[in-house]
């Protein structure tokens, strides 16, 4: 009998210990296997973040700059518009000759965010975040966020239009190629033109032109607006020591357009004063 009692006692003690452990708040411990010679290199299958190691270094904050045509390059040509948009463009150009400083008349002055691609050339900087299957662009102006899915999944079939549109991307060596559609038709595809069709499609090719200069080549395609695709190059300077700041446009905006959509300036004190 004694031989049988002892094992039962051990089992009871083990069960008690187990129940005690299950009822406690302490987290379960995980046994870490001893390292093998290859354990230091995580595979992409076991750790998706390992896939990020081969991407280019775009760390830091990027401030938009404008570079005139370089020697040997042709000067940037005006877009070629369809008749209704050519009319809008001509009117805008004529007004700019007579009213200095009129060139930024848009709802952005009234704190309506810029849509793509104008959101990428605002006066304040941008930054990039790489996570597995996605690139995120954070734009300081208006605190905008662009989510670019790079996991190979197709874009949604009929996404709701939005200011930044719906983006998918892929890497061609060190160049990120972004395709965006479903951009709200009331946004501006190029300075001086307000509005476009629901067919506006933007292709961006983003790469390092030199170690601290990012080049974005942006092609706008919308048969309702442009007779042929219109492409621009914009350059960004890297600032590794800058931080993106908060931006709340409604905090103290004195520049909202007047009731007729013209530039205005308010001398009212800010809310709460």
């Amino acid at each position, binding site marked *: 009998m004694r031989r049988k009692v002892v094992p039962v006692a051990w089992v009871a003690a083990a069960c008690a210990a187990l129940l005690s452990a299950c009822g406690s708040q302490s987290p379960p411990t995980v046994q870490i296997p001893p390292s093998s010679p290859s354990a230091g290199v995580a595979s992409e299958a076991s750790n998706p973040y390992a896939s990020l190691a081969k991407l280019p270094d775009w760390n830091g904050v990027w401030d938009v700059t*404008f570079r005139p045509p370089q020697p040997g390059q042709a000067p940037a040509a005006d877009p070629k518009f369809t008749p209704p948009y050519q009319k809008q463009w001509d009117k805008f150009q004529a007004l700019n000759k007579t009213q*200095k400083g009129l*060139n930024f008349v848009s709802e952005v002055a009234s704190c309506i965010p810029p849509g793509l691609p104008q959101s990428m050339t605002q006066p*304040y900087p941008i930054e990039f975040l790489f996570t597995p299957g996605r690139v995120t662009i954070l734009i300081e102006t208006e605190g905008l966020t662009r989510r670019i899915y790079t996991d190979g999944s197709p874009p949604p079939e009929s996404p709701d239009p939005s200011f930044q549109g719906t983006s998918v991307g892929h890497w061609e060596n060190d160049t990120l190629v972004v395709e965006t559609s479903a951009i709200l038709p009331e946004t501006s595809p190029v300075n001086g033109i307000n509005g476009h069709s629901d067919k506006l499609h933007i292709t961006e090719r983003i790469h390092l032109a030199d170690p601290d200069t990012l080049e974005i080549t942006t092609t706008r395609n919308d048969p309702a607006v442009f007779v042929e695709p219109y492409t621009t190059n914009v350059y960004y300077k890297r600032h590794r020591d800058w931080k993106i700041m908060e931006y709340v*446009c409604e905090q103290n905006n004195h*520049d909202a357009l007047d009731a007729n959509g013209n530039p205005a*300036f308010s001398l009212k*004190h800010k809310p709460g004063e």
Partner: protein
Amino acid sequence: MKLRNWSLITGLCVASLILGHSARAHHSTAMFEWGTEKTLSGTIERYEWTQPHTFIWISVPGRQGKMQEWGLEGMSPSWLGRRGWSLHSLNAGDKVAVVYYPLKDGRPGGFYVRVTSPDGKTLEALPTRNQR
């Protein structure tokens, strides 16, 4: 510095000169006499370190010694903060001289360009030739 970097910087300078302030604003500047410098001397009432623009409220002696409040818009905290300014650069009670571009419609307001305190220290609030 590598030659190509100098080329780039030179290019950026030229581009800044061509594009001027228009590349650095989120709205039209048509309501101001842009480029026409005027000067106000007075006492800071409030300095608002806010988005999308900073704002100076300043009390200025007007006709017959009556004080008048002026409102002067400036570049954003984002732009100024990266070029030597902070929310403590101007404080209520500071006596300063402000160079500004006036409103076209004659109201007491404008866009501030630089501020000089009594000790002679000047803060630039728009791109200068050196900052371009």
